[in-house]
């Protein structure tokens, strides 16, 4: 099928090798529609074709009919023609088919191209339509999935903004103003539980922590939980904070790389963090500069390795 298309396209546009190429490619991409990446290409191409198709339905139809005989001729063209089509500078212009095709060529290379494409595709107009519909559906699913993954922003169906969005904005505002513009790397609302979450830069963490604890609007005096997570590309430390006065929950994340993970210690700001950070150091190997007494807490003192890491292999195979 693909071969036919290419051959047809190749012989239909003898005088326009680039167009022929493009036609080939168009035919090719029409075939290769399933990929999401191609989704962008396809609709525009299809649209263009449709637009051009609107202009030249008759020639296309005519060509179709006219090409009925030439189809056989094209079909008999050997495959080498297919590969040589790009080299064809001057395809044989002889023949009614070429002439009719050449007519379209005078309208413009693009139009000719489109006509050629249309000519190529018109034989399978319904197939093309099905493919178009399938591609559109895939595009829509992909867009919906991208939206559902929490991107927010551009989407076909907008979600209602979280009631805690103003809290998040205020938090980012305060941190940016008190600590610095670069303190907050990103901010979002965790859809489960509507928790405002910010990701902070590691160098600014201790200053941010002080602001979080002392700022009169936030008063996040209670550190509920500190957890370390080994995402295979990087490591994270997550802090869950709450204000005993306002009863509002916040989450703070700090990302650090996996080779030499290091997050400044907040144990001066909240003493709760002391043993929690020791546990994270013990099990994940994240260093906490500024911690008063960073040593292993759960594993034996002479243990080698960090057990909770995803790539942990016990040094002693019998363990």
């Amino acid at each position, binding site marked *: 099928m693909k071969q036919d298309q290419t051959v047809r396209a190749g012989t239909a546009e003898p005088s326009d090798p680039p167009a022929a190429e493009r036609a080939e490619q168009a035919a090719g991409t029409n075939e290769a529609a399933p990929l999401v990446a191609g989704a962008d290409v396809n609709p525009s191409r299809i649209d263009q074709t449709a637009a051009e198709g609107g202009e030249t339905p008759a020639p296309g139809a005519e060509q179709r009919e006219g090409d009925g005989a030439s189809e056989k001729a094209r079909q008999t063209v050997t495959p080498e023609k297919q590969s040589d089509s790009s080299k064809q500078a001057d395809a044989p212009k002889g023949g009614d088919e070429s002439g009719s095709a050449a007519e379209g060529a005078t309208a413009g290379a693009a139009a000719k191209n489109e006509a050629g494409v249309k000519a190529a595709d018109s034989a399978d107009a319904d197939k093309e339509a099905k493919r178009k519909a399938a591609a559109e559906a895939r595009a829509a699913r992909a867009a919906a999935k991208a939206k559902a993954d929490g991107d927010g922003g551009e989407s076909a169906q907008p979600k209602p903004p979280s009631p805690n969005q103003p809290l998040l904005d205020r938090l980012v505002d305060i941190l940016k103003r008190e600590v610095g513009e670069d303190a907050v790397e990103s901010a979002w609302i*965790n859809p489960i539980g509507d928790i405002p979450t910010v990701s902070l830069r590691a160098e600014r963490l201790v200053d941010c922590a002080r602001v979080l604890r002392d700022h009169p609007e936030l008063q996040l005096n209670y550190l509920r939980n500190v*957890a370390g997570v080994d995402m295979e590309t990087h490591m994270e430390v997550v802090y869950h904070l709450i204000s005993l006065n306002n009863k509002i929950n916040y989450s703070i994340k700090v990302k650090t790389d996996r080779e030499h993970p290091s997050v400044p210690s907040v144990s001066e700001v909240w003493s709760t963090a002391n043993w929690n950070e020791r546990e994270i150091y013990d099990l994940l190997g994240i260093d906490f500069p500024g911690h008063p007494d960073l040593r292993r807490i759960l594993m034996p003192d002479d243990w080698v390795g960090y057990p909770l890491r995803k790539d942990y292999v016990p040094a002693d195979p019998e363990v």
Partner: protein
Amino acid sequence: MAIRTEELLLNVGPQHPSTHGVLRVVVKLDGEVITEATPVIGYLHRGTEKLAENLNYTQIIPYTDRMDYVSAMTNNYVLCHTVEKMMGIEVPERAEFLRLIVMELQRIASHQVWWGTYLLDIGSLSPFLYAFRDREIIINLFNELCGARLTYNYMRVGGVKWDAPEGWIDKVKDFVKYMKGRLEVYDRLVTGNEIFLARVKGVGKYDAQTAIDYGLSGANLRCTGVAWDLRKTQPYSLYDRFEFDVATAEEGDCWARYKVRLEEIRQSLRILEQALEQFPPEGEIMGKVPRVVRPPEGEYYAAIESPRGEIGCYIVSKGKAEPYRLKFRRPSFVNLQVLPKLLVGETMTNLVTILGSIDIVLGEVDC
């Protein structure tokens, strides 16, 4: 001739009758006065969090029982609750009532263990037996309900595993009445005793600011006057339907913690009365849960009020049947941090008194 004095380095534990498990406290003594104390933990570390990364959520539930083994129902609940919140599963009413009833019964049982062992540490032999005799009734109730006395594996994501057998609710009602009378006996035997009061008043005192800074929770926080009880401030389950008070005390010492815990037993009995009255006579015990429990990609931290404080569960899920990262926030682990601060300047006898009043369970400290 000048007298040469040396600091004595004493190891309390890990095998010791009063450390409530395998806890080691390395103590530097100057005579009988402690100058420095360092807890050493990890003797009971079993790698629950690492194991959880290879198990699906229903398989993790028995592991949660064994963390805080004195209060296993609340551990079950925190895991199921977190997963249910992530998946948006609704638990049927009868199941939620059963969960609440067993959690409150568990709170009473846990406080009974604490009361008995605390008084044993202080030197009084009999209250231990009384507390355990009363706790035996609760344990038998649990045995009837789910087949186990200590590690229940009772809750599931979306509900509970077993329904209350015939007559069980009436037995719980009888127990509530009985326990109210027993609290009077406990008070008569211990609470007014001069020797006991002399042992606990003014010992291990700290203020609210320290408690908040160290992230203490449960009775350790409420003994300083901060009325923070997750059942009231971040309600979960059906607690917002029932009337009960948050037990607080002002002094911040061992006596205050003692009072708070006994008051908590009273309030639990109050909640139980109301819950038993409103118990739905019939209903489902399991909600609509997919066959394979697969929380969507994302993360969530949920915490509830266990007898020891705030127990929390932080799950990072990548959409699979196993959690990507499961972390338990254990109250005993966080509460134990404050011990070195409290022990400086105290005598050895007070070490036992203070450690007992913080109420730790080593299974939870080490996870």
